[in-house]
């Protein structure tokens, strides 16, 4: 059994970084809240292979659950499998990445098991006996502090930045295969198709990022941003508006359903500053915002406010850098 269980999300590119961050957080918490051992739940195709990798990242035990019904992520069979795993291997705390998987299956499982649930935690603090789950709220002015008063299993999802993922090491834990039985009633939801981009850029480690939004206007105009990017050795990022319009590939989306970035410099071009975008750039050291609307919310977090048409401002910057 494990006191803290971490749900490991993995895809063709391997284990997601956020899952490894959750694992590292669990390691920090081991020893507090009455528990010591950290387990990992690895579901789906390749679970056994991934479980071995998870051991190298610091799990004491990794439970590999493979089943035909788990080939693709879907909430019901995954909740059923996790419920059965928890029955066999009880835990006090289940940590999942706050992704569209973790925030989907976590609350569903909580509902099924009547467990306490908190989503989107930025931190988990422990005073030796009780865990406090901290969620960033109120326009980032405060954390709301949640506690598990019920005493039973708590299910929490954690956001990017929860801890630094551990490098792969030797690892002394063991991988265990777990068998589950997933009935037909758990297989009523089906995946028609999934359209996802493969990651080829690494925005997370970029020092300078130029983010383009709906204001850029069209795909061709992203050329302007690329010219600036080449002068600054920068990467191109974008808002969901620009991605949905098809001007930029999905892997460049920054924000709630995109990546969280921490560059030294972020240049927001034609971006209004919606909360779902801003959560992804809050930790940028410096922000320059270019927008033709002097009251755009993005300026609240900008160090440099340039009110003007991006079509003239961006070329000027390119010239100055030439």
């Amino acid at each position, binding site marked *: 059994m494990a006191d803290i269980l971490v749900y490991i999300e993995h895809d063709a590119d391997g284990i997601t970084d956020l899952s490894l961050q959750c694992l590292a957080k669990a390691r920090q918490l081991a020893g507090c809240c009455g528990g010591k051992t950290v387990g990992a739940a690895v579901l789906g195709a390749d679970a056994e292979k991934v479980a071995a990798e998870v051991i190298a990242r610091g799990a004491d035990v990794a439970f590999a659950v493979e089943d035909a019904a788990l080939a693709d992520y879907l909430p019901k069979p995954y909740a059923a499998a996790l419920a059965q795993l928890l029955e066999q291997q009880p835990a006090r705390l289940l940590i999942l990445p706050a992704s569209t998987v973790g925030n989907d299956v976590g609350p569903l499982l909580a509902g099924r098991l009547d467990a306490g649930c908190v989503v989107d935690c930025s931190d988990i603090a422990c005073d030796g006996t009780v865990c406090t789950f901290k969620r960033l709220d109120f326009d980032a002015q405060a*954390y709301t502090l949640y506690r598990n008063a019920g005493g039973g299993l708590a299910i929490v999802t954690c956001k990017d930045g929860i801890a630094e993922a551990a490098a792969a090491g030797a690892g002394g834990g063991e991988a265990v295969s777990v068998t589950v039985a997933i009935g037909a009633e758990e297989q009523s939801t089906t995946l028609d198709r999934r359209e996802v981009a493969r990651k080829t850029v690494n925005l997370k480690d970029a020092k300078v990022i130029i983010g383009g939004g709906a204001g850029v206007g069209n795909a061709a105009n992203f050329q302007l941003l690329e010219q600036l990017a080449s002068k600054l050795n920068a990467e191109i990022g974008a808002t969901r508006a620009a991605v949905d319009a098809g001007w930029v590939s999905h892997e460049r989306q920054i924000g709630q359903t995109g990546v969280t970035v921490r560059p030294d410099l972020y240049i927001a071009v034609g971006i209004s500053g919606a909360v779902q975008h801003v959560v992804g750039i809050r930790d940028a050291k410096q922000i320059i915002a270019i927008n033709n609307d002097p009251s755009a919310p993005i300026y609240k977090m900008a160090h440099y406010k*340039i009110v003007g048409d991006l079509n003239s401002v961006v070329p000027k910057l390119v010239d100055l850098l030439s």
Partner: protein
Amino acid sequence: MACNSIVIAREVWDTRDLLPGVVSGNALNEGALSKRFEPEDLNALEMALQIKDKQGGKVTVLSVGAVRDVDVLREALFRGVDEVVRVVPPTNELDTAGQAALLAAAIRKLGTFDLVLVGVSVPEGENSLLGAEVAARLGVDQITYVDSLVELGADSALCKREIEMGSEFIRAKLPAVLVMGVYLLTDDPRTPRSAKAMLKLKMKKAPIPEWTAAELGVELSGAKIVVAGFEAIPRRQIDTKDVDPESGAALKAMLDEVL
């Protein structure tokens, strides 16, 4: 194919553009906050009304708890829903699990339904787990982060779901819970309609039925997750500098500073 929808509507803190001072010490300064109709719940309501406009059926709206500033149920009546019910909790210390238990019981009491629609909510101060907690209690299919309804058949709903590196198309068996995470474009056909003046007059005083936990046969076992307090985050001091785009010197100075 007529479709009966149940929409869950919540009144939530308006967490946009807050002035400093929302949290002092360990407590929330509620006077500094206003309330609004959960915007994603409004998107959910709009989807229900559009389904009804297109293929008939009934729209019922549920809400838990007393009205604070915004009466979401009356707002729903002003937009043309057929029925509303306020669920009265036994205590104000209700966690999401408690809300979900009450809602699931109310939905059962309403009888058969095809869809339950609710918002997923934005991060930072709004709750995104209610839909799944309700789905779990009803034992029906769920799709969260729903961007749009692609196809609604007699026994299934196909939805586009927004995920990290793209999107996926999920088919749920009816009845199902759809948790909306709509991102509205300019002139978006999914934009929530506003209240209708005529309905405002007609529904201003319409009685709103209330169902208590006891009537629903729900016994809550006490909140599992409690709010232990708040912790103010020191404001990141940002001295925003205005840079004149017409001045090459000003732009140059800015570049020199940041690079």
